[in-house]
């Protein structure tokens, strides 16, 4: 892997949470021992979706909202690849909301790293599906009326293989969560990463998150679904970060008889 991107300067504001997430991603790839030749970073559209361009990996930067079906096709065609979806809250929970739900149902071995800043950055400041009630923007001039989507709770309800949350301002924690995700082999991983948007979200600032994030209680059993759901829904003065939920459900691809003989791409090459 010797091809550096042609323009390696991230198109992000100085101080953007994406910068910290990108650094953590690079550290986690090394720490988890992921072979970059086998790594595919998949994204849709948005500020977070530019992430794959700023590191060394195979890249599939597709359409807005459609990272997950593209990643699904990649993983089913070649399940030896490490397929990591790294995109934003608007891309993954809004435009791609239907795919998010059905990806959780399938439990394919995809790692979702969702940069969640509760606002649309690329289009300059509209509400995102995770914006809090009352959040005022130039579109939602009287404040957001629709309840924020609950991605972690949805993932717990759909029995997602591994559900985690972290914060771009907690570098060591974030790297640890990413490594956990990269080493996971049981199916879909959701890692929701809280992240400030310094230009368009003046409510959920770096300090706002910093003051609220708390590690999940040490005695939390991630296989306890009821307790996991409570932690997934916790949002307010205290926001839990860490491993929220684990499932023992088999991965989708491990149940496909056709893939027992090897990856589809290797089977084609052998014919």
């Amino acid at each position, binding site marked *: 892997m*010797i*091809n550096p991107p042609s323009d390696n300067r991230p198109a992000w504001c100085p101080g953007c949470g994406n910068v910290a997430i990108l650094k953590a991603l690079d550290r986690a790839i090394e720490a988890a021992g992921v072979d970059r030749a086998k790594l595919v970073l998949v994204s849709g559209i948005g500020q977070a979706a530019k992430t794959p361009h700023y590191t060394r990996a195979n890249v599939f930067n597709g359409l807005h909202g459609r990272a997950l079906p593209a990643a699904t096709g990649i993983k089913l065609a070649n399940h030896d690849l490490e397929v990591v979806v790294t995109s934003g809250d608007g891309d993954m929970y809004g435009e791609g909301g239907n795919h998010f739900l059905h990806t959780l149902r399938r439990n394919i071995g995809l790692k979702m790293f969702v940069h969640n800043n509760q606002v649309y950055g690329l289009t300059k400041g509209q509400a995102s599906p995770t914006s809090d009630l009352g959040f005022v923007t130039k579109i939602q001039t009287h404040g957001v009326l629709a309840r924020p989507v609950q991605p972690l709770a949805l993932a717990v309800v759909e029995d997602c293989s591994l559900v985690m949350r972290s914060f771009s301002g907690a570098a060591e924690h974030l790297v640890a969560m990413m490594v956990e995700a990269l080493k996971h082999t049981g199916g879909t991983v959701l890692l929701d990463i809280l992240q400030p948007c310094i230009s368009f979200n003046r409510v959920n600032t770096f300090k706002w998150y910093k003051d609220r994030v708390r590690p999940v209680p040490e005695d939390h059993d991630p296989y306890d679904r009821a307790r996991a759901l409570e932690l997934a829904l916790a949002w307010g003065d205290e926001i839990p970060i860490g491993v929220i939920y684990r499932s023992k459900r088999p991965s989708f691809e491990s149940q496909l008889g056709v893939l027992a003989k090897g990856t589809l791409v290797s089977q*084609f090459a052998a014919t």
Partner: protein
Amino acid sequence: MDLTIRIAGEAGQGVQTTGALLVSTLARMGLHVFATQSYLSRIRGGLNWYDVRVADAPLFSGREAADVLVALAPEALDVLRPHLAPGGAVIFDGECGDGCIGIPMTQVAKEIGGSAVMANAVAAGAVFALLGYDLAALADYLGVQFKKKGREVIDKNVACAREGARRAADHAGRIAAPKPTGTAVAMSSGTEAVGLGAATAGVKFVASYPMTPSTGVFTFLAGAADAYGIVVEQAEDEIAAINMVCGAAYAGVPAMTTTSGGGFALMVEGVSLAGMLELPAVILLSQRPGPATGLPTRTAQQDLLFAVHAGHGEVARAVFAPGTPEQAYHLARRALETAHRFQTPVILLIDQFLADLQMATPPLDATLRPIDRHIVTEPPADYVRYAVTEGGVSPRALPGGPAPVVVDSDEHTEDGHITEDLEVRVRLQDKRLAKLGPMTAEALAPERYGPPDAPVLLVCWGSTYGPCREAVDRLAARGTKAAMLHFAQVWPLDAAAARRAMGLEGDGAARPERIIVVEGNATGQLAALLRQVGVPHDAELLLQYDGLPFTGEAIAERILG
């Protein structure tokens, strides 16, 4: 000589099983059979019918009138009896008046077979008697069909067939029927043919959302998945389906999706993506009448211009439009080959008529013969995905190999990374569209049927092949010399080749006095497309958009006026 048997009833009454039984038996006896289905979008209720046309010579179309109507419901009598050919016969499941053969088929099936399901055997037996065919052939086929179910089921079905024949004995041989040759004729439907074409070409990934009339191909591929090593996934929607296909294509396996007009509309952003990422994505688009939900279970040729222009921005693609099951089999392979050769989306345009029709087809090779993906297995150290080349096709490597493969829906540099460099943008867009040159040079020439000096030229595409071909024969029999020109590839079009083939220039075909474009739509889309690409013409339009397929006789009648 030929005749048409029309089986009609409510959905769920066994219209299809009766039709299928007759088709299989008659083809096995060495008759040429052409079968079409017309059904309503309900699991039960609604009038459906199944036409089985039988002849001692090859058939390419259905007919308007039926010689034998098998009515399983009173509504079938009301609606379809007016469409009975002179001298035709009606068999009704129950009591009926003069000129109608009343056989309580369901009741007979229950009494003799112990199940209403065997009414189809009773009906087939009655039809055989009416046509004067040897019941042994029907009994023989029932033995084959129910071999796995055992002797008792076979015997009951045969007994039902015999009772049907006995009840129609007074009318035995009343309808003159073509003589069987005894040598079985191989049959295929459009659905089976296109599915087998894709499976044998090595398609490895199929993601679709069910939508009539494309669902049959999706189902066929799911059935073939274990034998051919295909992953078949029912996507949550058509948007997911096309994006999954793009992902699988990127990772290196031949991939396709199946859909109809409304689903294809949802996929269109993905068509543009496949164009931008230069991915071999194949889309089977099985047409039905729109706009919107339209007539879900009927046929149309309304999405030609949509398929040719689908995708925001300007996207190179190929569009194939097979006319018969045999063409569908070969063009499914060619669609996958073209997609890989030129790294573009390819659309395979069929419709309900072609999907569901069954006709004599040379046996289709079911062995797996994978296409060439045109992959670079050992990319150089400085590999970039979108190297600008003459002809626009860049060496394609796969992720997982020694070089990273970077693809981006944003405008990108040759290495695949996002760019705002406007000079690069122009160079890369030129590169992507440059493929249209060699794609046009390799485009399939339109197929001509009929004499070179014909003063009447029928121009058509897709499933209208058979009806137009039959119309040419019918016109010849009536003293009008006509020819057909059929486009099995509708994009890209070689304008000069089309002008020559249509006799508009060059010294090939003579310039016809009348050019008539025959299409299953209301606006004449191929006629418009030909003008757009540089084939100026003053063709008449012969259009049909009522949801039913063309027939050769209707086309001939309209031309003769």
